[in-house]
């Protein structure tokens, strides 16, 4: 026995505790989702997923992610260029501000957009006068999703860009490449795995967000319901099987996210 290991019996005991805790808190809920989704068989499972409201909710979720993720991706790349490649005053303060959405409760995230665009909100009267609907409509759902996923890509890219330093870009510039060419041919390829990683994490959160979306959506079936909200409505109506069937799609998304994440991590470690 070396100085850094415990007796085998203690190792087994600790592994047992870790796995038991893990099984109870992580594996059991996962199994529970699929068990309940398939409680009435595969036929019912696929039928509930083809329900009109379910399909509308899935579409809504995909559209929301398709708008929120690219916008936050562009922001993440641009912000990491400014923050990682240059030294300027107030950089740490800027980083703190960028992280803000992660420390705000999802319900508060929804609340601030109600205060801004709601009927009694700051811009409410103007919006009503011009017949523009934001709250309890698609724009609000997309806006809060952008808010809650705001820092995710930037947080992944900034440390990667920083660790790569400026030498390669400076070499390209000295050899006569333009700024844009340097950015596209040197910087972007260097952070491609970080970009993919950021997209995976951002997409998972965008598709799964519940609290913030719940505040601003108004739960209008077929119109503003995302898949997580659809799950809530079905569950509160005691349609357990249908609720878990919809939930199983989101659970599959989570599993897919973890697998994609692991593949990217392996690729980065191997230095591809």
């Amino acid at each position, binding site marked *: 026995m070396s100085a850094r290991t415990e007796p085998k019996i203690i190792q087994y005991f600790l592994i047992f505790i870790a796995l038991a805790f893990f099984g109870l808190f992580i594996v059991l809920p996962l199994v529970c989702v699929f068990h309940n989704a398939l409680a009435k068989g595969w036929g019912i499972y696929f039928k509930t997923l083809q329900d009109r409201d379910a399909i509308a909710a899935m579409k809504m979720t995909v559209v929301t992610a398709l708008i929120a993720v690219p916008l936050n991706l562009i922001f993440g790349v641009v912000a990491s260029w400014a923050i990682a490649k240059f030294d300027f005053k107030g950089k740490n303060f800027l980083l703190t501000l960028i992280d803000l959405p992660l420390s705000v*409760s999802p319900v508060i995230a929804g609340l601030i957009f109600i205060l801004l665009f709601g009927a009694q909100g700051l811009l409410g009267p103007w919006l009503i006068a011009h017949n523009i609907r934001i709250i309890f409509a698609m724009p609000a759902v997309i806006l809060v999703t952008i808010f809650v996923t705001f820092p995710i890509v930037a947080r992944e890219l900034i440390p990667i860009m920083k660790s790569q330093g*400026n030498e390669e870009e400076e070499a390209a510039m000295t050899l006569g490449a333009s700024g844009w060419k340097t950015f596209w041919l040197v910087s972007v390829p260097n952070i491609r795995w970080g970009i993919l990683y950021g997209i995976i994490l951002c997409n998972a959160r965008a598709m799964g967000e519940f609290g913030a979306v719940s505040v601003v959506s108004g739960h209008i079936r077929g119109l503003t319901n995302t898949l997580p909200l659809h799950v809530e409505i079905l569950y509160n109506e005691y349609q357990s099987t249908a609720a878990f069937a919809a939930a199983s799609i989101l659970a599959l998304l989570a599993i897919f996210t973890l697998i994609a994440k692991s593949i990217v991590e392996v690729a980065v470690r191997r230095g591809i």
Partner: protein
Amino acid sequence: MHEPFVKKSILPGFSLSLGFTIFYLSLIVLIPLSMLFLKTSSLSFKGFIDVIMDPRTLAAYRLSFGTAFVSAGINAVFGFIVAWVLVRYTFPGKRIVDALVDFPLALPTAVAGIALTELYTPTGWVGQYLNVWGIKGAFSPFGITIALTFIGLPFVVRTIQPVLEDLDPQIEEAAASLGANRWQTLTTVILPIIFPALLAGVTLALARAIGEYGSVIFIAGNMPMKTEIAPLLIMTKLEQYDYAGATAIAIGMLLISFLLLAMANFFQWKTSKNLGKA
């Protein structure tokens, strides 16, 4: 001589990229968030205090912060064990367990909420055994703590893990050669080194748990004064179009959270200072 705002670099695009960053940040985050303070300033101080000190609000705060603390404590212990086992030992399926640690972050909170509720109802897979012991699983503060523990686990494991991996083997060998047993090495050598990371992870879990909504509302039962969390109370006020009340409760929550974060930062600063002295 004034220091320049930005250090000279031959790379282009600084003003453009920083300008866009600040513009987008203001549009999406800063302007909406400033609404909280704008709305509060329209509230009189007495009005603010009345909402905050209302027995129902106080009960919600107590519940939210209390359950968040207990779950963070549970995660401090078990998260440490999980991280330790993942870093130090080998066992079949270790890579899968490692990947699944992030599952609570990847799983939409509503799904976690209904799955945990189903497990902990009196007839559920876990709830029926709790029932035998007279413990109410779902629809009680116990259930809320379970949901918050689920949500917080990855924060604790993922902040301790890298520190454990980087731990210099020589430190433990030195402790052993000086006659310390494993337990002494753990409590007097390893724990003090990873304590700042543990505290950081617990603080992250705590911050997340205080604001958590989706995974909690299904399992909570949502009885006013008993199992109503603060974020739900904000939601209820909004549904009654009481924007000012909702904002006051939100500001109260944020103030307490920032106080906690400041305290955690202070402890972290203090422990790192003590370590530097040693």
